[in-house]
């Protein structure tokens, strides 16, 4: 039994810990054992925090013994290496921050600590969250646990792979254009990007501030709901963070979707989608009809423009956010005779190719003579994309789409062609531009055993609705969680 503890869901482990069937220390040890066994094959972690995790687990056991167990007491989680963790190296998968040890915790890390969570390690990612495959990491590629020749998706690929490979019970990611939902789909786990402003970003290394959002990965929708409850809520350190009360997401999981109107956008079922993906999505939609939901055809006419608008807005914001890496106060420094040269050389040596590409594109679209034609145009098209969703939600409660047109692609397949890589996010990126919540859940496997993801999009702050819909599908048992073969 003990050796299987790491395969549990958070809900199962919570109950088992409460009944004292096993200890938090045993649970954490099981995850660390699994990491030792499988991480050499998938490289989901940049830093494994064995010593700290065992200390946290021992502290959790003391609280459990005292009958004072908070929501996530003793639950081992993987943390994307984009979150500032006090005293634990935080690299953002960049040479720039290879030796950076934050003097403070991100707000969500502090909240998880308070809730008794155990931080098992810092998960691999695309450098500065820029990528769709976790190949842009200064610490090596993460491999998909379902097939190690395939990518796990990105940018939060290490977090998704760690959950899929049972190296932890849940994980934190971030999502700027699909960076939680795509890896969740490619690795066959649940992942939610909450509404923009639902969760604090204080202490989360910034990529594109009008789009970035924090969210969890988990083995089930229920577990994602449990994690989100602890993560969400007002934070005076993030001025964009909403003060709305946080509902008990778990209690929204009634299994009842009768009368729910599920919008199916015709623009998302187009040429280029793998037939097996389309079949799995259509089957999931049929399941919803059997559960009593109503399917409604809707239109999101500006879908095809979303990637172009995103790569203007996101890179412009990135070029400003990444200006702080100058080799003066922290991070890498390459010395020079004057500060200008020091900046230029430090940034040349510290950033990888994709990060440089996005800084360059963002700087260009903001530069004199191009601002109106590119940056302002991108912001206007963002308005049109938001408007599409506003109109669609007059006719439906949830929008259901594929997460991606394909299953996980081969490692190396898209690295030589940045634009093809960008197109991986075609079905997720509009959701960030509109600031909506989006949930990715497994809805099947292709013939090669690669997971397929269903995306459920809600109105702002309607996390409960999409979680309820996702959980209802999960309960049908149409898709059994398939352990990764490693």
């Amino acid at each position: 039994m003990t050796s299987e503890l790491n395969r549990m869901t958070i809900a199962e482990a919570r109950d088992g810990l409460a009944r004292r069937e096993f200890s938090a220390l045993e649970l954490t040890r099981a995850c660390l054992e699994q990491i030792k066994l499988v991480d050499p094959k998938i490289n989901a972690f940049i830093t494994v925090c064995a010593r700290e995790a065992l200390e946290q687990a021992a502290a959790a056991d003391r609280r459990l013994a005292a009958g004072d167990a908070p929501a996530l007491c003793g639950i081992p989680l993987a943390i994307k290496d984009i979150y500032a963790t006090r005293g634990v190296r935080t690299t953002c998968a960049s040479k720039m921050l290879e030796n950076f040890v934050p003097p403070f915790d991100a707000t969500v890390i502090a909240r998880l600590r308070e809730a008794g969570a155990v931080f098992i390690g810092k998960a691999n990612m695309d450098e500065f969250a820029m990528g769709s495959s976790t190949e842009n990491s200064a610490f090596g590629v993460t491999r998909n646990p379902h097939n190690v020749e395939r990518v796990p998706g990105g940018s939060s690929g290490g977090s998704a792979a760690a959950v899929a490979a049972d190296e932890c019970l849940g994980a934190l990611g971030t999502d700027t254009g699909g960076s939680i939902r795509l890896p969740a789909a490619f690795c066959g786990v649940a992942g939610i990007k909450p509404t923009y402003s639902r969760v604090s970003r204080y202490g989360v290394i910034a990529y594109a501030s009008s789009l970035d959002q924090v969210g969890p990965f988990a083995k089930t929708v229920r577990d994602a709901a449990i994690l989100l409850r602890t993560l969400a809520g007002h934070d005076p350190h993030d001025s964009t963070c909403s003060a709305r009360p946080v509902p008990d997401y778990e209690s929204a999981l009634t299994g009842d979707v009768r009368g729910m109107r599920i919008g199916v956008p015709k623009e998302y079922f187009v040429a280029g989608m793998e037939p097996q993906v389309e079949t799995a999505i259509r089957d999931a939609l049929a399941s919803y009809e059997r559960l009593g939901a109503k399917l409604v055809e809707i239109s999101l006419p500006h879908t095809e423009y979303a990637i172009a608008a995103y790569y203007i807005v996101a890179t412009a914001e990135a070029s400003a956010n990444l200006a702080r890496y100058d080799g003066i106060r922290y991070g890498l420094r390459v010395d020079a005779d004057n500060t200008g040269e020091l900046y230029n050389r430090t940034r040349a040596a510290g950033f990888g190719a994709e990060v440089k590409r996005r800084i360059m594109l963002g700087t260009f679209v903001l530069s004199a003579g191009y601002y109106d034609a590119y940056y302002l145009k991108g912001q206007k098209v963002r308005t049109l994309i938001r408007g599409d969703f506003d109109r669609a939600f007059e006719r439906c409660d949830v929008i259901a789409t594929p997460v991606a047109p394909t299953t996980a692609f081969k490692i190396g397949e898209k690295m030589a062609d940045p634009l093809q890589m960008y197109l991986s996010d075609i079905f997720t990126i509009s959701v960030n531009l509109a600031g909506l919540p989006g949930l990715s859940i497994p809805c099947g496997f292709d013939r090669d055993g690669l997971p397929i993801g269903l995306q459920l999009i809600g109105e702002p702050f309607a996390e409960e609705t999409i979680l309820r819909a996702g959980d209802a599908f999960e309960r049908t048992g149409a898709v059994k969680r398939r352990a990764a073969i490693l």
Partner: protein
Amino acid sequence: MINSIGPPGMRLSVMADSKISVEQVRHVARLARLELSAADEAALQANLSEILQYIDQLNRLDTSAVAPTAQVGEAGAPMREDVVANRPDPEAMLANAPARAGHLFKVPRIIE
């Protein structure tokens, strides 16, 4: 190949396969504080040209009457009292410094 650094929309002299000249790449790299090798410049010219060409599809949309969206969060930045909410420990702040002199960040000489 003729390159011109003109405002967009006046691309008459720019060939379709090169939306951005190597001189523009160098100019943008200076703005972005990035030292680029010749190989970097060539690769970025090709990549950025292709991406900008893709972005040009936005010009199919008439946005003359559309307001831009800069932020999708809830309206208004909250106000707070102007009081110090954290007291950073100088030693902790300096612990990550690549070079320091006592309690100062060390940089190359700026004034001769």
